């Protein structure tokens, strides 16, 4: 699952996607139809025409009502199907990103955002995925801009906005905009989730290492390890690698070696280096954890444990 690219970016002008994906107001054909029926009905009731003409008008009204009813059912069905397709596409992009199938995810997100979307929720999700993909392709400036636009248009709830602000802080740090990063982190600190957030601890850890404050990084790591361990999942590897770099800066090679080994036990060395340029300084100087050969990971069948739904 690891990949180590600098990959060619498949994204063109991402700013234009913001505009092109904006949902268009829908023409309320059904209301026009309903108005027409009402007019015909009133016309039939109030006009002083002959019985034959009135019967014809009433027959016509019934036909229009039937047509309108059928149109409503068909149009409702078609709209529902289109909304569901859009939702499925959003889920598919999410899964592709989680599975780290970046080119396919990028192609799908570009296709989805290059035409007006049906719901603002799906558009917000698409733009968030686009920001993540831009970060993956090292276009951190564009990723930060995209997140700012999503936040600016108030497309998401408070919790999602918090996650996006953390992503933005990471993006500007990667982009070496340290002043912006500091501002972003200070803004994050004011949020109610800041104290218990593992992601917040990770971004501050990265800032400490990036700005040459290894002692602060080590103290922060030791203080926040329980929260990071509980919340970050596999990204805990980033925290271990960052603290390894902090120890390395202090020339505490023993502790750096242990932390680096733990980081590489979770995530391969090459992937860590792809994520953070700072880790290139560690490569070759500290041994990565042994990873048994994955191809040998199929157990020979014995007598035990048969019949399991595996």
């Amino acid at each position, binding site marked *: 699952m690891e990949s180590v690219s600098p990959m060619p970016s498949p994204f063109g002008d991402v700013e234009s996607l913001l505009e092109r994906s904006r949902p268009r107001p829908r023409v309320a054909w059904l209301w026009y139809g309903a108005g027409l029926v009402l007019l015909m009905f009133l016309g039939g009731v109030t006009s002083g025409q002959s019985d034959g003409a009135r019967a014809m008008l009433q027959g016509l009204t019934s036909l229009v009502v039937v047509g309108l009813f059928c149109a409503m059912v068909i149009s409702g069905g078609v709209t529902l199907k289109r909304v569901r397709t859009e939702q499925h596409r959003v889920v598919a992009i999410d899964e592709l990103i989680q599975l780290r199938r970046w080119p396919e995810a990028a192609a799908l997100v570009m296709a989805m955002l290059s035409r007006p979307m049906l719901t603002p929720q799906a558009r917000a999700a698409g733009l968030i995925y686009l920001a993540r993909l831009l970060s993956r392709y090292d276009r951190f400036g564009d990723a930060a801009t995209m997140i700012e636009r999503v936040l600016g248009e108030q497309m998401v709830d408070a919790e999602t906005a918090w996650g996006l602000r953390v992503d933005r802080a990471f993006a500007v740090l990667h982009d070496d905009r340290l002043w912006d990063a500091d501002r972003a982190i200070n803004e994050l600190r004011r949020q109610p989730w800041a104290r218990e957030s593992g992601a917040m601890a990770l971004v501050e850890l990265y800032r400490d290492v990036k700005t040459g404050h290894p002692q602060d990084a080590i103290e922060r790591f030791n203080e926040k390890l329980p929260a990071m361990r509980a919340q970050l999942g596999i990204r805990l590897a980033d925290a271990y690698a960052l603290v390894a770099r902090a120890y390395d800066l202090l020339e505490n090679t023993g502790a750096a070696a242990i932390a680096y080994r733990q980081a590489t036990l979770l995530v391969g060395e090459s992937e860590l280096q792809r994520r953070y340029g700072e880790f290139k300084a560690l490569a070759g100087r500290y041994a990565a954890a042994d*990873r048994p050969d994955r191809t040998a990971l199929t157990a020979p069948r014995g007598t035990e444990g048969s019949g399991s739904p595996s």
Partner: protein
Amino acid sequence: MTPVESAIWRTRRDLTFAAVLKVALLATGAASLLLAPAISLSGAATFAMMAGVWILWMALNYHSLKSSRLAAASPLLIASGDYDAAEAHLDASLRMFSIFRAGKLQALQYLALLRREQRRWSEAAQLCRAVLKHRAPASSGIAVRARLILAQSLLAMDDLPGAQEAILGFYREKLGLMETLEMLIVQSDYQLKAGQWHDLMNEAAGKLELTELMASQPAALVQASIALGAKRLGRMEWATFFRGRAELLGEPAELIARRPILAELWGDTRSQEAPQV
């Protein structure tokens, strides 16, 4: 607290009534169109009948939507530990009549989720079986989630044959990534309890990749289970690898508290510390 028998009975009654009502509305609409010329019904009368059907249909939709919205709020309440509020939402939703089949079954499945969180395993299993019996629309994912809760509840009750049957049912469903991850957790738990060490190690490379997509605690639990499988099979290199990853992601003492058999990985101590840097 909503009695599960009454919730199941009410759901069954509403589903039947909703089906009858839909047929009746459709029949009335069709009759007003087809029979109008035959019985010399005036255009105005036809229009009034059609409008009546339409208004009733829209009112039922609106009412059903309110019921679905009430239920939809409950997963968030359950996740935040506010079980009383979740119970109140679900009780109100299940008491309301709805013509949405999926909405009604969804509410019942959320009630099963709540009972699972309350560790009322037998009630959760009962609710899930009721949901599965009614065949929810495949695209809604209700059946898959109900099957997951059923398997988890049966495992918690040490009903291994029942859990095996529930897990086998997944192979008839189309699973998304999230459901695949959930299924891996349940499946590993089952294999650990049943002592199926070969199956735990089977396709471990693929499982390793899936655990990387999980939250810390379940990832640690699954990898510790695989480590134990590897240890039992004498594949010590893999046992060390998976155990090392598990103890980085989760506190060994907590893992042992949840699955006492995992004590074998860390010796007998239950206060094993995480490796310190």
